[in-house]
């Protein structure tokens, strides 16, 4: 206890030195904590996207890719409205190697009363859907009824509220869990509802340009699951040849593209963290080297009064650990303030699936950042502690007496 109070006095009466140590270690902790959270959020986002996608191939109208990138549609919620003849679904089902096929119809809401911007409305067929339903089932325990919608987690409305799209009122039946992708900003309904909404859009003379004539005979995309042990690339080629005016896109390619971007971002973050660490370590070593001369006389007094070498090294390391702990705690708290409230901003800036880790993992990463920072602080101080513990009190106290 007396040692501890001695340590506290040493630290509090050298505010400049103590503050600079705390600031440096806080800087280290911020970089570790924020870097780890961002990278793990990106990894979690990618794995969530893989889990949610469920399809091996997506068939869209040939002109769709020129309108909007499917990757952006999925990742950033970019509005995409494109249609093809509903017969495409049957043609897909007829194709060899296709196990399941399910159609979806996209519609972009106008400035619906829900929002100040457009949202993507996605109509799916509950009878043969295998893409959206398993995911919706986590939040909804009954089949989605007519004029009922399920909203993504980023659409700010609550279950039970009514939701107006093209002056048609829809009831919010469920709100989905976060996926970290653009699907979080979409609204889901069944085919009957989407047809009502398409009709309403036409009545409002909102041109969605349904070239195929009757809106009940259109689909926007067909999601395909290939038979087990069938090469999706082969089926993809067959679909491109078999379904006219349509393009089949392999989701694996899309995922690879996303994974590549993710590893690029992860690498950049890792390089940045390394740079911060190298810089901070150099500064820490300089600070501690300067401390050798500054504290030589003080520690010679301790030695003179009977402090052993081990006790002196211990005291320096404990002081450093205390400063590093304070810095790490402040840094982690500041990092949390920077990284969590601005999740949406980070997500939209990185343009990659981003899903914040669960609270347990966050606590683990925080503890990891604190532990690593304390370890690094102590490692930087170890050489100084060793050198100072070798101080010869007789000679030192005579110098400049």
């Amino acid at each position: 206890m007396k040692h501890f109070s001695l340590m506290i006095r040493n630290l509090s009466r050298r505010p400049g030195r103590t503050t600079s140590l705390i600031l440096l270690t806080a800087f280290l902790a911020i970089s570790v904590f924020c870097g780890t959270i961002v990278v793990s959020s990106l990894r979690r986002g990618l794995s969530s996207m893989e889990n949610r996608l469920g399809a091996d191939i997506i068939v869209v109208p040939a002109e769709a890719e020129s309108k909007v990138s499917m990757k952006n549609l999925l990742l950033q919620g970019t509005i995409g409205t494109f249609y093809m003849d509903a017969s495409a679904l049957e043609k897909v089902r007829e194709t060899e190697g296709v196990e399941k096929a399910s159609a979806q119809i996209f519609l972009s809401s106008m400035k619906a009363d829900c929002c100040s911007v457009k949202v993507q409305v996605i109509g799916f067929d509950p009878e043969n859907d295998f893409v959206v339903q398993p995911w919706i089932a986590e939040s909804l325990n009954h089949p989605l009824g007519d004029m009922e919608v399920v909203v993504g987690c980023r659409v700010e409305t609550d279950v039970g509220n009514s939701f107006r799209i093209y002056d048609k009122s829809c009831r919010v039946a469920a709100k989905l869990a976060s996926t970290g992708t653009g699907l979080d900003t979409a609204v889901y309904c069944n085919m009957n509802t989407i047809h009502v909404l398409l009709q309403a859009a036409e009545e409002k003379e909102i041109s969605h340009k349904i070239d195929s004539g009757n809106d009940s005979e259109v689909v926007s995309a067909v999601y395909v699951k290939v038979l087990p042990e069938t090469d999706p690339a082969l089926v993809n080629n067959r679909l491109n040849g078999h379904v006219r005016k349509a393009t089949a896109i392999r989701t694996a390619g899309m995922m690879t593209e996303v994974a590549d971007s993710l590893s690029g971002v992860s690498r950049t973050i890792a390089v940045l963290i390394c740079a911060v660490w190298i810089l901070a370590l150099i500064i820490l070593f300089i600070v501690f080297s300067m401390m050798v001369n500054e504290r030589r006389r003080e520690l010679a007094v301790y030695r003179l009064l009977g402090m052993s070498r081990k006790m002196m090294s211990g005291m320096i390391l404990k002081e450093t650990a205390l400063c590093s702990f304070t810095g790490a705690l402040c840094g982690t708290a500041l990092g949390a303030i920077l990284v969590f409230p601005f999740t949406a901003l980070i997500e939209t800036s990185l343009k990659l699936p981003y899903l914040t880790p669960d609270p347990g993992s966050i606590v683990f990463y925080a503890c990891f950042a604190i532990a690593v920072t304390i370890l690094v602080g102590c490692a930087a101080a170890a050489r100084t502690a060793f050198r100072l513990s070798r101080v010869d009190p007789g000679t030192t106290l005579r110098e400049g007496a």
Partner: protein
Amino acid sequence: MQLRAENISRRYFRKHGEANFFEAVRSVSLTLESGKLTVLNGKSGSGKTTLLNMIGGLLNPSEGKVFLDETDLYALEDKDLSRLRSKRIGVIPQGRSAVDTLSVYENILLPGMLYGGTLRTEEAENWMTVLGISDLRNAMPAELSGGELRRMAIARTLTASPEVILADEPTGDLDNENTRTVLTAFQQAAKAGKAVLVVSHETDAEAYADQILHMSHGTIE
């Protein structure tokens, strides 16, 4: 209690000069006994401080041994020697020996803080009053004069009440009145059963001594 040095020498190596080493202390034997105040005088550079550091357990002799009763100081591990020094040997060095981040009072109580136990607050108050620094108890070392710092170091050692007190030029920064006060305090300590060694190049201390030793060119004459 007896502090005994047997044929201790200390050689320093020189990088420059004709000889590649010089002997600061040459085969010195000396005994300090409890209840006696010994004064060691000699010219500057005669090896007094080196000898004091060696018998105080701070500087390993190149040759010879130092015994506190039957304990060979330099045969001990650093941990045990440090603990022994803390409890039984008090050294008052020549230069400034204050911890700048602690107040005068905290500096005086510092030896008691290192290994736990009760703090000798009453003794601290007493020696601060005797040495005339009681009004400086909350002052920081940076605010003190050389003489005040010296009295603080003396008060610290006397408060810790070790069996052996080794003082290196303790009256160097002091005026006549304070010199008398300090030397009287050392005499009292010796009468109380301590073994006191005062190293000085002045003759003031000799009047208080039970034993006077003279050192010249690294040897005691």
